[in-house]
């Protein structure tokens, strides 16, 4: 019996969380006592990409959320939630600033006819959001990554290509010369001497 009792709060908690995830859209906007609505949302940085990028600068406490390009600026609570209060009905824009991540701005429609009804969509790819959970589209790497020393990178570079060409000249040209029939060579040389013009073929064998 005891274990069951102990697990009850956990189940209750799970149930509550489930409820939240289902009704979070409805919760997202609620009429405040003032003259506007409240937009609630959450910023979530998935663990998988957060590991490498979440360095000194990418802490959750340094994330800012901006409404309409700086009209309101708010910060994240430890659980990643944020809220904007007194927002009038209309179409708004939410942006997330986090060093190391690229977030798409989010278009948020606060309905005047159905108080508290909120629709959200990413403006970058026009994807609608079922709930206002903002995740980075990609991680941003601000630095070039130093390529480790590799032979391929050398070969591919212009210098490498030049070297390659020289290798061909140095090693293959004498071979080519060897393949030529001595008789033919002599004839060619004779011809050339007659013409009196020095040519590359007459100069090359001299070098080797």
């Amino acid at each position: 019996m005891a274990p069951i009792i102990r697990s009850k709060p956990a189940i209750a908690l799970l149930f509550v969380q489930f409820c939240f995830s289902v009704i979070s859209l409805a919760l997202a906007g609620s009429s405040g006592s003032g003259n506007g609505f409240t937009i609630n949302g959450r910023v979530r940085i998935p663990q998988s990409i957060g590991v490498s990028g979440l360095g000194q600068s990418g802490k959750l406490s340094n994330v800012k959320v901006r409404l309409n390009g700086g009209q309101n600026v708010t910060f994240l609570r430890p659980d990643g939630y944020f809220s904007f209060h007194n927002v009038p009905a209309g179409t708004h824009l939410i942006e997330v600033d986090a060093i190391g991540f690229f977030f798409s701005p989010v278009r948020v429609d606060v309905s005047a006819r159905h108080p508290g009804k909120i629709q959200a969509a990413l403006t970058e790819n026009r994807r609608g959001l079922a709930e206002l959970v903002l995740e980075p589209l990609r991680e941003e790497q601000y630095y070039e990554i130093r390529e480790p020393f590799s032979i391929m990178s050398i070969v591919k570079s212009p210098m490498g290509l030049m070297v390659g060409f020289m290798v061909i000249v140095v090693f293959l040209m004498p071979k080519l010369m060897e393949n030529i029939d001595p008789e033919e060579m002599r004839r060619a040389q004779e011809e050339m001497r007659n013409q009196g013009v020095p040519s590359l073929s007459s100069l090359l064998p001299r070098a080797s």
Partner: protein
Amino acid sequence: MGTAVRIFLILLAIISSATVAFSLYEDQVGLMDWHQRYIGKVKHAVFHTQKTGRKRVVVSTEENVIASLDLRHGEIFWRHVLGSNDAIDGMDIALGKYVITLSSEGSTLRAWNLPDGQMVWESILHGSKPSKSLLLVPTNLKVDKDSVIFVFAKGCLHAVSSIDGDVLWKKDFATESSEVQQVIQPPDSDVIYVLGFVGSSQFDIYYIKAKDGELLKHRSSTFSGGFVREISVVSSDMVVALDATRTSLVKVTFHDGEISFQPTFISELLETSSGKAVILPSAVTGMVSIKLNFLTIVLRVTDEGKLEVVEKISDATAISDAISLSTGQQAFALVQHEGSKIHVRVKAGHDWNSDLLRESIHLDNQRGIAHKVFINNYIRTDRTHGFRALIVMEDHSLLLLQQGEIVWSREDGLASIIDVTTSELPVEKQGVSVAKVEHNLFEWLKGHMLKLKGTLMLANPEDVVAIQALRLKSSEKSKMTRDHNGFRKLLIVLTRAGKLFALHTGDGRVVWSLLLLSLRQSESCPCPIGINLYQWQIPHQHAMDENPSVLVVGRCGLSSDAPGVVSFVDTYTGKEINSLALVHSIEQVIPLPFTDSTEQRLHLLIDANNHAHLYPKIPEASSIFHREFSNIYYYSVDSDNSIIRGYALKSNCAGEDVDEYCFDTRELWSVVFPVESEKIIATVRRKLNEVVHTQAKVIADQDVMYKYISKNLLFVATVSPKAIGQIGSASPEESWIIVYIIDTVTGRILHRMTHHGSQGPVHAVFSENWVVYHYFNLRAHRYEMSVIEIYDQSRADNKDIWKFVLGKHNLTVPISSYSQPEVVTKSQSYFFSHSVKEIAVTSTAMGITSKQLLIGTSGDQVLALDKRFLDPRRSLNPSQAEKEEGIIPLTDSLPIIPQSYVTHSVKVEGLRSIITVPAKLESTTLLFAHGVDLFFTRLAPSRTYDSLTEDFSYALLLITIVALVAAIYVTWILSERKELREKWRFNSRKKILSAPLLIFCLPNLR
């Protein structure tokens, strides 16, 4: 031979591996950039030193920053920059672990975790009317085991739980028509006193139960003399107020709900002068301090309930709030100036005559007077009380004083820069000794050997550290002399405090600083503000013996018709050469493109009455000016009435007390926008000192397009009045942006274009013949950037060679604004993901290097974007010829490449402006971005094509040359040997072979 070739090949391979970097590698951070973090002028400070751990002070500033500073070194542990309209009204520490801030005129209450700055909760307080916002964090009051924070904001008293920010109860005072001035929580009591005034003479007190907000008692009483709404709390049942004439102090006691008034004339207390007194805000039990005619007067309430003067201080003074010591006493600090010294006195609240601490410190006189002081105590090893004082100075710097010396200081004035200009450094004068050169050479070689090791992956971790240190500290870059590349310069910055700083571009250190006397508060000029900096004198001919100087322009007061002040500052020494208090106001400053014989630049100052005043006021300047008199035009923008006016100079001023350097102007033209449909939100013109290298652009089909380059173009953006507010306030149908390009000499509109369904804010930059602007598209609900390029059609005919031959070309026709220009414009728009705070463009010495746009995003980063992405000739499928020309296929949005963030992984918090200055090296431009933080770097928009990068390994080059020489030598020896061997072989063959063959073979062997 073969081995030699192989050696050669390996060496070549090593050289080729050292390729040029396109953008930044992580280990290059700090090599040519620097980043400085500031907080601004401190408003509130709370010490947190109880725990044995890190001792810190939490501060909030006028730049809307809250930060936790290390008490030992003054470094920032954590910092948050709140939104620009989220000014901090109050700050305190609750529960010993949360920093509570009240901001946005009392509507936002936030709690931050003290150790790491994570926001814990945020609470929005609602109310009905604006009021004073007060934050009260009682130390020992519990409501249902919960520590409560009391906030008076928007006409309501809120009790907020400090654990989760829930509003426990709320009491509305708006209906009471009382203007609440103070909320007091007497110690060991669960009743809150709310004090306020109704009208000008009624004093009200409300007793509120802390537990549930129940109104226990409400008393009010009327004082015939009336009140100004300033009170100072003396004790939990007594306040001191000022009467309506500010000539007498009224002691108000409200013991047990009985309000009694007891006025005392200040003149009686002082026996001397009369004047208007002001109560200084301080919270010291039993004390009141007032300011009267530059005198600071400290008064004490005696046990008999009488006010008596304890001290009159004529010097500038600052008084801290009281802190309670462990012995139950109260202590407060008093900072007093005397010449260049400041005296810090810490006094016990009950005993004025003795000081707990008395220290005198010699201060740099460029810091001005103390504006605020905060104290904190600690127990010394001998169990006596020690005190540390945090002083906020006039120049916004922050000092921590302890044991008679300055432990640390922060130049936080640099968080509020108004304007920036640059100055060259002195030319290197004396030669360098041989020994120094030898030493340098040795060091240089050693450094390069280390770098080589790093390149070849031979370096051990210690070497890597040494390499990094070597690269960063490189004495070359922080030298105080001019360099060939023009990388070393002085950045002269003017801060809001009226202080000039000279920062070295190499490492960002402050070379000199000067608190301008003309921009200090004085009787004749009660609230001076600095406006702009201009380069006044740049000596070229006498560069060795004359110093450059800058012109600082300011005015006395916020309105534009307040009298102006100018001062001239030497940029090498940081001394003020001259300063003038002007009789006229300064609306606009126009630096003219003329200099006199001492190379002082002529400036035209336009005042509010549209008179132009010429500076410097010397006859020579006047004669130069008269030669160009008819060519001087200027314009003014009246954004309230949506009018742009153009002016020309007419004649010398008529009237008395005017000199010959004053000129009347006449209005030439005006562009009046319809107020009901258009409102000016942005005007941008070209930078006056911008250099354009090519007048024409050769396009793909060998055609030429002539850029329309005129310095007199103005870009104007207007917005429909309904769309003037924030995004979401207007529907796409009722909002539009109209952009204009106007010639400022003739007032002719060269181009007009409407963006329907778009909204501001508009940020724009104008350069060469193009303008790029950023705005919000409401239909797509995304930000957009557009480009307009202007081409001159009248010169397009010049391509015809026959016209040249027959002399019919119009190239010799002078370009004038008065000739009707035939311009064509091309434009294109793209989506851009981020909102923008500022757009700038790179500028280089000759204007040859291609341009990059520098976009300061709202995330406080600076993004470099190639101008090629904003080219109206981009199309979906560019032809082969266009591709060769470098035209990028059209995409609907502009790419954001993370590597092209010039600020890499740092933020320039609160970014306000981006300034680019050309270096002498054509490929390079210097970038300075400032906000709350400062950031400087060097950019090469087309890469450094004209110099070697700093990473270039000279040692490797040297070794390669040596190795090559060695290889040649070895090859030579080898080939000699081979030749000899061959000869021997042929000699032996000679007997067998026939002679003709030998003749054939011998030349081949050579």
